[in-house]
């Protein structure tokens, strides 16, 4: 493998299940040291893409190389150097916390002494050291996630794949996990993650692609994407009812910025939030609540697809 070769290189990558095309010819490139994200709503094709990169799902069409190798012919050799954190927990409930790491290390053919040393380190790093002898079932959701990540690191992977790493966790557990993932990033581990949380993508990713219905609709750093596709600020108007909102939308039409109705809210994209708020009020629109905020990746997704991430 040459030094320049990207860790993941996909061209026209496609996944079909019967007639349904889950991933439609995407191009992706992940460089060593990157934290790379797939952002999109459920069903966008993120997990299918991850499973192809993880060499557990055959490519339907297009080209894919992972760590410079072809997943079709060299799955085991590639997987030997990957760490995988799946969306659905699949820890071994028949084994203790410590044994989950030991046995997983053995799947990679690592010597017991090496596993023992790494397992102790990883349990410490993931703040699970006191739980070593506990049963997996006794762990909280956040602890299970951390154990799954520890398990994925037992072979010191070149590339760590995380599919929706914080879905289903409470805010505190999420923040702890983000902090740990950030530590991994600082250690130079290459991370590829999927998420439908824009704050997760903004906090962690150096680069990301926004996926929708099997296609990549935008690519760049979080900041680039926002600058390219959105205005600097967003004015959020909340109305008491859909009718109120319906009445108000025509009166917002002459504003310079783009106007996006979302449920009982209307988002107005602008480079000067305060000026826009004054203009709205002088047009005689009186929403129940007004909020001026900075644009986020959520807005980029809305502008590009006309839908929200959690739809």
């Amino acid at each position: 493998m040459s030094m320049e070769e990207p860790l993941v290189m996909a061209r026209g990558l496609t996944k079909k299940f019967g007639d349904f095309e889950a991933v439609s010819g995407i191009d992706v490139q992940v460089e060593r040291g990157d934290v790379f994200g797939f952002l999109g709503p459920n069903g966008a094709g993120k997990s299918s893409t991850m499973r192809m990169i993880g060499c557990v799902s055959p490519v339907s069409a297009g080209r894919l190389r992972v760590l410079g190798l072809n997943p079709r012919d060299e799955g085991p050799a590639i997987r030997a150097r990957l760490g995988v954190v799946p969306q659905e927990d699949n820890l071994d409930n028949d084994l203790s916390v410590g044994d989950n790491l030991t046995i997983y290390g053995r799947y990679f053919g690592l010597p017991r002494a090496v596993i023992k040393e790494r397992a102790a380190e990883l349990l410490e790093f993931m703040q699970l050291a006191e739980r070593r002898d506990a049963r997996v079932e006794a762990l909280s959701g956040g602890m299970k996630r951390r154990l799954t990540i520890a398990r994925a690191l037992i072979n010191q992977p070149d590339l760590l794949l995380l599919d929706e790493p914080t879905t289903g966790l409470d805010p505190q557990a999420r923040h702890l996990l983000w902090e740990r993932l950030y530590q991994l990033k600082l250690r130079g581990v290459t991370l590829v993650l999927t998420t439908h949380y824009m704050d997760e993508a903004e906090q962690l990713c150096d680069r990301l692609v926004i996926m929708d219905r099997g296609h990549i609709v935008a690519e760049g750093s979080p900041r680039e994407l926002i600058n390219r596709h959105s205005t600097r600020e967003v004015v959020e108007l909340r109305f008491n009812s859909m009718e109120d909102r319906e009445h108000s939308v025509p009166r917002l039409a002459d504003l310079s910025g783009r106007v996006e109705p979302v449920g009982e809210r209307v988002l107005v994209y602008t480079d000067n939030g305060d000026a826009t708020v004054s203009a709205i009020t002088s047009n005689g629109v009186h929403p129940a609540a007004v909020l001026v905020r900075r644009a986020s990746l959520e807005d980029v997704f809305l502008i590009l697809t006309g839908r929200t991430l959690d739809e």
Partner: protein
Amino acid sequence: MLATATARWPFTRAVEREIRVFSRLWRGTVFSTFLNPIVFLLAMGIGVGGMVDEHSGEVAGVHYLAFVVPGIMAASAMQTAAGDSLWRVLAGLKWMRFFHAMVATPLTPADVYAGKVTWTGMRIVMSSSVFLGVATVFGGVLSPLGLLAIPSAVLTAVTFAAVITAYAATQDSEAKFAVVYRLGVIPLFLFSGTFFPVSQLPDWVEPLSRLSPLYYGVELCRMFTTGDPRWGVALVDVVVLIGIAALGWRWGTRSFTRRLTT
């Protein structure tokens, strides 16, 4: 770095998992794998056997205990294999998904399958050895050749495990598993020459017993424990069992691959 991916026999690491799980949970399996066959031995061999011997003296040339010991041995091997290969397989594929975790490593679906079936064979080495020892104490083993009944029982178990594990991986729920027992395991258990010679069956039923893989396992075990080896017949038994196991293995490799890599 690549040495880890190309190491020999990766499926042995899947077996290691089973050994670790067993070392934690074996107490819960003592009754079904070790005591159950011995309870059968006492009830059938000593209880029923006493009555049979009183009336007719011998069954197929030996006292009833000696007749029924190899039957119970092979039939228990089948039962343990079936018990190991249905719910446990769906647990790994669906309910707990630990098989999915395994194929994210250098292990392949074929390795996971092979590990599962191999482990069932290893369990039978343990349980049938204990059973043979107890049966010998009660006088149910007539020849030192009886030791060959252990690999015979293991082969029987592996054959059933290979097929049933493959089948389980094609199922989405456990709904049909009870049917596998009712229409598969239990009839085979009863009509494969286990507790009485198949010649006792009506003439038109008797040939049907040859369709039962267990029939060949029982025949094999019996010729060794009764000290009556007929090597030609033994060869046929072994070929039939290995043949079925090989077909099961092919099916299992495919059904695991389909299930774990979509």
